[in-house]
């Protein structure tokens, strides 16, 4: 829905969110599916196009804004959350999105990301995790598995990767989710819930880079064989997955999670998912079920809690100041403090 400039309201379609720019990703890149999902979802938002802004950094993922017929800025490497924070604080009326890659968001931009989440600035951050630097042609990223052989690490990388969900939870994020580029239904559902949440929404999207890291997520992404490994988290429901939902997740007394045969342990022992738990201990434990996706992987919303939104508090302080002292009077302000007259 949007106004057409003449005050009339028009129902928008996916097409309305396609910009006139030619899409420049490699054929077969997972980014195409993401773009299609987001563009298709947009009309549902019910927000006029002109009130939507996409901000990005640099990387293949970061080309995203160019393809969205909304306002957008393709910023500099890693700084999108900071640019978007300023935008959101200036204009809380806008619907703000950040699109970033694993390198952009977690390597050079790691600090802005964790601070945005801590502040709880109202924006939706889509992080396309392909566990590689795509645009610069295939160096390992902070999510690449230890020992990864890439252009910059011909003998294997020596550093242990981040788990983006753990990091987000450790950084106080109020909304944390994970989905897959090619799972449109699930992705759309996550987007729906994200936009309904006020604050920073961090969404990790497993994205296949078929050129430099093809198949990194096959264990869970493969439309056929991967299904078994998808642990779809559903709020307030016992965590089950696999063929006929035959597998489940339980928690030991020491806060370790285990994957079990539901029949063996009985449904009653299964961990019941709760997105809204104030303390993110369980969400964190869930995030540790998998690091790099080689087996069962939780997908969905790990955490969704209400917390004051940074720019709302900023607005409140302004409103209060105006209420207390009236709107600013420049002449009065200049005269504040001790003055004297010369005649």
């Amino acid at each position: 829905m949007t106004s057409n400039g003449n005050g009339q309201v028009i129902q928008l379609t996916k097409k309305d969110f396609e910009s006139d720019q030619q899409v420049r990703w490699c054929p077969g890149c997972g980014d195409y599916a993401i773009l299609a999902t987001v563009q298709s979802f947009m009309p549902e938002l019910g927000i006029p196009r002109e009130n939507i802004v996409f901000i990005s950094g640099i990387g293949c993922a970061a080309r995203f804004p160019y393809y969205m017929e909304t306002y957008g800025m393709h910023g500099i490497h890693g700084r999108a959350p900071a640019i978007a924070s300023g935008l959101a604080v200036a204009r809380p009326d806008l619907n703000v999105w950040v699109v970033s890659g694993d390198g952009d968001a977690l390597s050079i931009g790691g600090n802005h990301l964790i601070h945005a989440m801590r502040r709880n600035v109202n924006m939706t951050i889509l992080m396309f995790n392909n566990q590689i630097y795509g645009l610069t042609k295939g160096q390992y990223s902070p999510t690449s598995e230890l020992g990864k052989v890439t252009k910059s690490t011909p003998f294997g990388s020596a550093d242990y990767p981040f788990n983006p969900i753990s990091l987000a939870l450790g950084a106080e994020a109020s909304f944390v989710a994970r989905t897959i580029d090619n799972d449109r239904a699930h992705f759309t559902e996550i987007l729906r819930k994200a936009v309904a949440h006020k604050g920073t929404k961090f969404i990790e999207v497993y994205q296949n880079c078929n050129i430099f890291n093809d198949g990194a997520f096959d264990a869970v992404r493969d439309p056929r064989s991967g299904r078994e490994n998808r642990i779809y988290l559903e709020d307030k429901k016992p965590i089950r997955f696999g063929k006929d939902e035959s597998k489940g997740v339980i928690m030991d007394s020491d806060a370790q999670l285990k994957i079990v045969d539901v029949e063996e342990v009985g449904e009653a022992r299964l961990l019941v998912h709760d997105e809204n738990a104030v303390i993110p201990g369980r969400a964190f434990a869930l995030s540790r079920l998998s690091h790099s996706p080689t087996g069962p992987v939780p997908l969905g919303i790990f955490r969704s809690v209400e917390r004051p939104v940074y720019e709302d508090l900023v607005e409140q302080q302004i409103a209060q100041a105006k209420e207390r002292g009236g709107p600013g009077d420049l002449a009065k302000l200049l005269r504040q403090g001790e003055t004297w007259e010369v005649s």
Partner: protein
Amino acid sequence: MAKTVQEVDQVVIRFAGDSGDGMQVTGDRFTNATAVLGNDLATLPDFPAEIRAPAGTLFGVSGFQLHFADHDILTPGDAPNVLVAMNPAALKTNISDLLPGGTLIVNSDAFDDRSLAKAEYANNPLTDGSLAGYEVYEVPLNKLTLGALEGITGLTQKDMLRSKNMFALGLLSWMFSRPTDGSEGWIRDKFGKSPEVAEANLRAFRAGIAFGETTEVFTHSFVIKPAQLDPGTYRNITGNQAITLGLVAASVRSGLQLVLAGYPITPASDVLHELARHKQFGIKTMQCEDEIASAAAALGASFAGSLGVTVTSGPGLDLKSETIGLAVSVELPLVVLDIQRAGPSTGMPTKTEQGDLLHAMFGRHGEAPVAILAASSPADCFDIVLEAARLALKYRTPVIVLSDAFLATGSEPWKLPDVESLPDLTTAFEFATGPNHEGEFWPFLRDEETLARPWAIPGTPGLEHRIGGIEKHDGTGDISYDPENHHRMTLLRAQKIAGISKDIPRLEVDDPSGSAETLVLAWGSTFGPVRAACKRLRNNNVNVAHAHLRHMNPFPSNLGEVLHGYKRVIVPENNMGQLLKLVRAEFLVDAQGINKVAGAPFKAAELTQALEAHMEIPR
């Protein structure tokens, strides 16, 4: 004994004591009382980098110098006539500056063996004859303060001694016939929450006055008549305060919301602190995680249609480089305030320097020109910020404003402007509202005159568009790797900034004789010392001209003409010759520099001497 009152035309006082002695507050209060009296004045605070260095140490000494007069003055004074030293360390680090025969007031209670040792005095200077050249007043400030506070309950002796700076303030207020109402009111305000403390400070202040008036230690006091300033309402203002007010004014006069994003750094933090108080104006301030984020947030705010501002000092400017480059490329307004301090690297964070001019000019990769302004006095910071906002809005460009530690913390009387007389910034820009090219919206279709691109802000239906740091097509703004287009865009970006020279005042030259052969060209905070040195030269019948730059990039359109009009051009700077490089390159004049990089402004005398040397004037 009736005391005599002596009239003098100017005085330079320096208060010096431990960081914990409240010297900055004492100086501030004295300054305000002096300002209210209508003297012209200039101040120079000088404090250590340590928050509260261990008591009595040499590096923990904090000073505040004030120059006031019955006439127009330009600098905080080269050397004090009056030095107030609260302890041996303060005496040791400051006595060499006191003018021969000058007045020295010391807190004699502080000259015990331990304190003398801490100050690395082998002998007690109060008794070893080393102070013979001065008029020394030994005042037992501790005893006198405690005496005055006798009977106040609820305060420890240590608490009570905290008021001794107010005793000193009282004494000096008497000595220089300063009004006392303001200070009394201020004490009551400041300590309103703890009545005993307020009472203690008040009593100490009054005891100081009484001590001067009644004891026989002091035989006379001084008056300094008000200066002949322009009629109007005045207040005393520091550079950082002026910047803050300038930002509020820019918001009011442009009708735009102002968003300032910063990260604390000395000596810039106060701008963030002060501005954060002005929420009534709808101004938003953000303390970000670092300087990169704060530049980025300010740019985000500008994209959103606000006036985005970021404030920092040298090390922070380094970090903002890449983001300023993005702002150059996306052509959005952005005001970057750089309060320079002594470098390189961490340098001397509380000390002044003009070291960032070339960094502001060239400190980005690629060809990324920006506009640069420099304030020339504390009060000028107000005007320069308004000018920065005007240029940023009109030309959709980053504007870097250079101030420095000297301006930031120094103060001078400021004649309050009439709000209506301030520049109307609403005429500097308008938001795009519709298509600008055959029914389409082209975000990089430029205004023919200013070469600025349209500013279309989110929320405007039909103008949805994308911008970014990749080279874009002249006009449509689409990504373009076309070689010719890149060349053209590079030229256009340069021309846009160069074109500002048509939109700024021509450079005025102060050349009263009209026949000077030497021009002193300067910029920024050297204004006061340079103008003062020129006056001194003229008093010695040496003709000399002074031109002072506030627009550093582009230069005023007549600068070349001005430079070529003199036989000799001298450029004094608190750096190694940065403006010098620029004018030599641009105008091929064999200008020569006078360079002081000592964390302190020029003294009028040393500058006069250096100018004389350059002009080959025998002394």
